[in-house]
């Protein structure tokens, strides 16, 4: 089989979202110090508790060391060369979409985000974050009628400081880890979402992140609070232009589900992965964690990771409420010289809590793909259940797939199952498809999609279609 050919073909795949937008931006000088943090805070017109919180995080960050344990390799990051704040230049925050810079709207249009509410048609409420600031949030009024707050983080700080102060940092504390501390110190914007008691959010909420300016690090922060008995489904998408330098993306996402609340969080991550030689691309070092704080609550993470030069991400669930449920569904595709170290943590604190982990890793070219997971059942968490399955598919003989699960059980009434396997696509499977008239490429795409099906079906429809297409594009020509 001409697999060598396939890999070359894959190299030719072009990153569709690699354009830049020439937009006037206002940026802070590169580097990080307390003044920059004060500047960010002042730009955002933040109340004093925010500035203090940021400075506390920054001082703590100074004492921390960059983590080395992940199975990824990269040159040291110069934190003083990063621009920590960049915003499209506008007089003030636009009041409505009509005021948003048309260039920006066009950018999101190119990305296929139905920002200018191709409205009722798309039916997805979007908060778009461009470099450091949130540029537009759609459907806000409609949601407000139900009492749902869905807005930019900076707006939430202005309009709902009590909520922000109550919940910010309760799931991912400012001192949690190196990148979370950095984020806490310098985060510039993000999305904020609050679903009041008993409300079922009628539409998918969505955030779209885009890095545009060069040398900038994007540090956004998302906070979702689902009050008692509420439900929300949330989508997140990301892209960035093609640049020869690496750019850092260190986001924090916090989810809080109270009694009987349910949060579904889906991500399609398609940051620029760098070129075939590993030049450029985004370092995606993200901390995502949710807490099932109330009884019978439920949090599910679904992620499709196809972009980024390096991904370092472990969406986790702390199952504190009794009978709560945590789920993690992941597809991680790495090609060329991409590296991904991703997985999840399920911390069972409450009784009869359940968690499910389904992880699918696909490696091609020279890529390295690692699943790293922790299932921890504490002593008082009796009657817990975990099921984990992680499968890896290898396309090419120079890539790697690694599985590092860790299971810790501290009582005798809980059950944990873990299974993992690593293989390549069977010749017989391809042969079967080909003799039914499919080209080798279609066969691979069919098999890979089947391999990922369990995860895709957890995604909302539009995203599932997008994810499937993305995967197909990235897989083009992997098998000859």
């Amino acid at each position, binding site marked *: 089989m001409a697999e060598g050919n396939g890999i070359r073909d894959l190299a030719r795949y072009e990153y569709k979202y690699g354009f830049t937008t020439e937009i006037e931006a206002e940026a802070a000088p590169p580097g990080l110090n307390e003044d920059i943090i004060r500047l960010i805070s002042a730009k955002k017109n933040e109340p004093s508790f925010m500035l203090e919180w940021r400075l506390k995080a920054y001082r703590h960050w100074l004492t921390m*060391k960059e983590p*080395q*344990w992940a199975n990824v390799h990269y040159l040291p990051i110069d934190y003083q060369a990063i621009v920590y704040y960049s915003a499209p230049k506008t007089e003030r925050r636009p009041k409505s979409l009509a005021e948003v810079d048309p260039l920006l709207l066009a950018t999101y249009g190119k990305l296929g985000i139905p920002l200018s509410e191709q409205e009722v048609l798309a039916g997805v409420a979007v908060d778009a974050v461009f470099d450091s600031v949130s540029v537009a949030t759609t459907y806000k009024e409609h949601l407000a009628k139900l009492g749902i707050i869905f807005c930019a983080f900076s707006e939430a700080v202005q309009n709902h400081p009590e909520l922000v102060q109550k919940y910010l940092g309760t799931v991912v504390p400012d001192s949690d880890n190196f990148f979370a501390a950095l984020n806490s110190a310098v985060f510039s914007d993000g999305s904020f979402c609050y679903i009041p008691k008993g409300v079922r959010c009628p539409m998918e909420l969505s955030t779209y992140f885009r890095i545009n300016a060069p040398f900038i690090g994007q540090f956004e922060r998302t906070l979702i609070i689902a009050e008692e008995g509420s439900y929300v489904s949330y989508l997140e998408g990301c892209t960035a232009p093609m640049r020869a330098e690496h750019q850092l993306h260190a986001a924090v996402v916090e989810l809080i589900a109270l009694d009987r609340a349910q949060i579904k969080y889906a991500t399609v991550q398609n940051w620029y992965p760098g070129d075939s030689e590993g030049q450029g691309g985004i370092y995606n070092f993200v901390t995502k964690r949710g807490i099932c704080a109330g009884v019978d609550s439920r949090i599910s993470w679904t992620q499709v990771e196809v972009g980024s030069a390096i991904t370092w991400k472990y969406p986790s669930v702390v199952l504190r409420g009794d009978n709560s449920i945590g789920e993690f569904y992941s597809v991680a595709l790495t090609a060329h010289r991409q590296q991904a170290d991703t997985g999840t943590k399920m911390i069972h604190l409450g009784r009869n809590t359940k968690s499910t982990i389904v992880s699918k890793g696909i490696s091609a070219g020279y890529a390295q793909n690692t699943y790293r997971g922790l299932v921890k059942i504490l*002593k008082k968490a009796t009657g817990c259940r975990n099921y984990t399955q992680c499968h*890896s598919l*290898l*396309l*090419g*003989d*120079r*890539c*790697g*797939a*690694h*599985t*590092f*699960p*860790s*299971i*810790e*059980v*501290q*009582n*005798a*009434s*809980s*059950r*944990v*199952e*873990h*299974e*993992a*396997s*690593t*293989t*390549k696509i069977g010749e017989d499977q391809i042969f079967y498809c080909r003799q039914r008239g499919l080209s080798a490429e279609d066969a691979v795409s069919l098999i890979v999609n089947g391999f990922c099906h369990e995860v895709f079906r957890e995604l909302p429809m539009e995203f599932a279609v997008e994810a499937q297409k993305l995967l197909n594009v990235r897989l083009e020509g992997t098998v000859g």
Partner: protein
Amino acid sequence: MKDIGLVTDLYRSELSRFEREPAGTMPAWVQQLRQAAGARFADLGFPTTHHEEWRHTDVTPIVENPFSCAKRRPDITKAELEPAVSWAGPRHQLTFVNGHFSPLLSVLERLPQGVIAGSLADSCTISSNFLEPHLGRHANYEDQAFVALNTAFLNDGAFVYLPPNTMVEEPIFVVFVSCPNGEAAISHPRVLIVAGPSSRATVIESYLGLKDGLYFTNVVTEVVLGEEAVFDHHLLQQESRAAYHIATLAVHQGRNSTFTSHSLALGGALARTEVHGLLADEGSTCTLRGLYGATGRQHVGIHTRIDHAKPRCTSRQLYKGILSGHASGVFHGRILVRQDAHETDARQTNNNLLLSEDAVVHTTPQLEIFADDVKCSHGATVGQLDRDVLFYLRSRGLDLEDARRLMTQAFGSELIRFIAHDRIRNRFTELLPRWTSQTYSESFPA
């Protein structure tokens, strides 16, 4: 993150004392090896729980106890040892007391032409050229502190050599007896087994604590298999419940060789077994099966690493743990498939049974794969006795205790049935229920 390990002054002084001791008849290369390992240990120090591999194994008691090298000749009579070894009806038995070879307690009937089985210290002098290419070459003392420590204090142990095309039918029984005499003794036994091409043999390594007491056994076993060699290894660990036991088994396999190991680890306050298998040439097969049981406040750990360095090798691992009381267990298994090690077939399974509310288990099965034409899988479970089955057994007239005991035994016996040698299988089958009953009477007193 590498923390600087701990080396207490005690070990430093013990090391320098040992270095100053007259080396006797040991050849120069052994002394060099000891010195290199000693220097390495001084750099490494004891691992702390900050080391990823030692995260769940706290060796502080080993570091803090003032262990000193075991007294040379404690008095053990044949009669005292008899009950623990007679099951094997041994015809080839090497006995070591506190790490030192005891010719009186050993039995060596006629071995086939050219086969060597004897004390390592003697062999170093007599058959130095057989040992030099292998001793200290397979167990890595560069980054494993306990291997470095053992190598630095390398003095005695067992040496088995099989010339090409020989077969030893009767198992070779290597017994390490620890008999503390009120002192906290440490011993560093070393085992080296060199199996020539197309040879075949069975070895049982047995660790016994004759009296209850505090002691520390830090053993390193190196097994080198030539082309087409078939080797059956068994490990029976029944140290005293106050003892510390750290064992490292390093296996180096040649082309088309077959290594099978069965282990039963029941003793020790802290017992850790590391198995490092290197499938160094095509077509070799490595099978590891082990059962570990712990109760009271015991800690038991199994750490395996199978390195598929060449194509077309097969590895199988099945480890089962039974944990009761306040015991903690660790299984840490890693399969590494190197680039171009195609047609690798590797499987790893770890099942754990938690019998009490206070028992803890940590299991970390890992796959690290750099080749695509492979079949690799692992599975791990943690659970308890199936209620439905318990109910069924009780409905058939068994009381709860018996039903539990029967199921626990069944859980373990799945593994024992694979043992090829009758007497060894019978011994394992005998020990398991004995241990189970004892555990039940301790954990669930009537």
